[in-house]
């Protein structure tokens, strides 16, 4: 993208391609007559391979920001480039494709599909594609990812037969199976005990190192901060300078 530096003037980090570039991003929720300004002009960018923690108190706008970055929601104004591309005018199915190929999601409440077992949950994003890869090859990759996140022994279990930590591992495996450019995790440890949280955090960091997948991790837990190489603080819909 030739004109990308113009958009991200001043914020681009030297020497690496930016996966996320956000400039003056605003999001206003209209609630009847009153409106809530959840994001009030956010500027920041994330470079490829980074593990970034978005830290902020409850209600500060983390989820709002991640939803826009994840192409699940649109900003009211401002600019957002994903992997150098402006996706703000794409229709639903185009955005679905962008999400499917470029973004992996890890949710606070896991959001596994209850009728599918571990393998099926993990391979699901690859199966809803138009051009599906060979079944055997896909199964091989699923097995490899399962091994990576430590789920080998639970491959045929249904989600309700797994612990919270195991479920989040399935979600992580599902996010990684598409080899996305970016993994978004909105408070992925909030529903886990501290020991399991640490394991999940550790796992994500290891995957970040080994695959150089970009992670964006939202939390209100300052404890997580210590683990992060980079922290973006957010408060009342604005990024707080370091």
């Amino acid at each position, binding site marked *: 993208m030739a004109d990308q530096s113009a958009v991200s003037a001043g914020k681009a980090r030297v020497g690496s391609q930016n996966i996320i570039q956000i400039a003056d991003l605003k999001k206003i929720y209209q609630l009847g007559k009153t409106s809530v300004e959840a994001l009030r002009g956010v500027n920041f960018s994330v470079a490829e391979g980074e593990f970034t923690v978005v830290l902020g108190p409850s209600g500060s706008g983390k989820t709002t920001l991640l939803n826009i970055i994840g192409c*699940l929601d649109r900003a009211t104004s401002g600019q957002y480039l994903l992997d150098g591309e402006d996706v703000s005018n794409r229709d639903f199915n185009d955005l679905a494709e962008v999400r499917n190929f470029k973004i992996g999601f890890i949710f606070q409440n896991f*959001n596994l599909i209850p009728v599918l077992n571990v393998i099926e949950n993990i391979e699901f994003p690859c199966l809803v594609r138009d051009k599906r890869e060979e079944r055997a090859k896909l199964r091989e990759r699923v097995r490899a990812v399962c091994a990576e996140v430590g789920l080998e022994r639970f491959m045929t279990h249904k989600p309700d037969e797994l612990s919270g930590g195991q479920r989040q591992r399935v979600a992580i495996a599902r996010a990684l199976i598409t080899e996305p450019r970016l993994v978004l995790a909105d408070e992925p440890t909030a529903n886990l005990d501290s020991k399991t949280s640490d394991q999940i955090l550790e796992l994500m960091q290891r995957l970040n190192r080994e695959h150089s997948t970009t992670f964006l991790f939202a939390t209100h837990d300052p404890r997580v901060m210590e683990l992060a190489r980079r922290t973006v603080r957010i408060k009342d819909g604005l990024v707080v300078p370091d």
Partner: protein
Amino acid sequence: MSPLVLMSFRNLSRNRRRTLLALGAVVVGLCALTMIRGFVNSVRQAQLGATVYGTTGMMQIHRTGYLKNVLSNPLDLAFADTAELREKILSVKHVKALSPRLQFSGSLSAAEPVVAGAEAQTNSEPKTTFIAANAVDPELDRIVLPQFYTWLTAGKVFDTADAPSMVVHGDIAGPLGVGNVELNMSQPKELWPVLLTPDKDGSLAGEAIQVTGVIGSAVPTDKRLALAPLRTVQRILKMDGQITEYVLTLDDVARASDVQSDLVKILGPDFEVSRWDEIVPFIQELLSNIDFIFDIITSVFLLVIMLGIVNSMFMNVLERVREIGTMMALGIRRGYILALFVLEGAFIGSLGAFIGLGIGIGIVAIASKIGIPINAPGSTLKFMLHPFLTVSFLLRAFLLTSMGAALVSLWPAWRASRMKPVEALSAV
């Protein structure tokens, strides 16, 4: 989309009670429909059979103008029953057999009681009754109207066309004192009733005749009905070789229209060819009414079934909002969400239809074996109904239900596919 099919199928067992309820509605509805259809089919068949195999035949050939003048002087429009004419008619495709008939009216009078000892029937006055009779050749007529001959309630039908005997309706036989056919047959000729009939010229001709059989009716018929031997009647009326009509049976009643136009071509303008449904239009109307009522019942049943499915599918969608949001986040397209719920509805519809039709078939088969006795209004005979089903009904019922279920599921499915990912994901 194999994962979608898999998911739709597994989702059925997710809320078992709801699925079973929706499924139950389809099963019960289709089972009931199948039973009703089986019964209606048998009523239809019985009515149609009694008409085309027992009353009018499938087709009749008269001299032109006969049917309009039948009440005034039918004998004027008699015609010669020749071998060539018969061959001509039988050469037409789908015509299986014909029976020549001479329709006439007259009266039947009980004989004056003669003094014949103590056992003489002491009728104080002679009894007379009017009859509307068909003179037939029994051998040919039995082939064309086999069912008519099963309605005999006593005695037997004359064996030959020149027998000196006849068959009358039960309602005539009793009052006339000829209800006991065994007694009739043992009586000397002097005690036989007399058949009086005006011939072509209007002069009365008469002859003593034996009543050897009594006929009942399974459908509303003229109570003055009587059957007489063709050549005997031709002799009495001095109309040798003359008949008023041919009654035809075809190898397929559905071909009646084709056969009719072929016959019209062959026979020319001197003859008129009438289908059974032109001779007794009210029977055809009755059958159409039966079909119409069944169609209404079917529509109501299907409507209720479809409402049940829509309701169940809407609850399914509402229960899975977050899952829909998740799938959207994972990059599923709108069309796939649509397909997911449509498939689920179609599964319920086709599975329910399959089971419901299966049970229905079983019940109809049993009912058919046992038979359902009914008394048709205006009939003196019991009818045995044997319910049956056609493949085309079963196929249509199955397709209509499964495709209907898929179609109505489009509504909740469409609502699901139109959800906004963020809103769906934040649902509790």
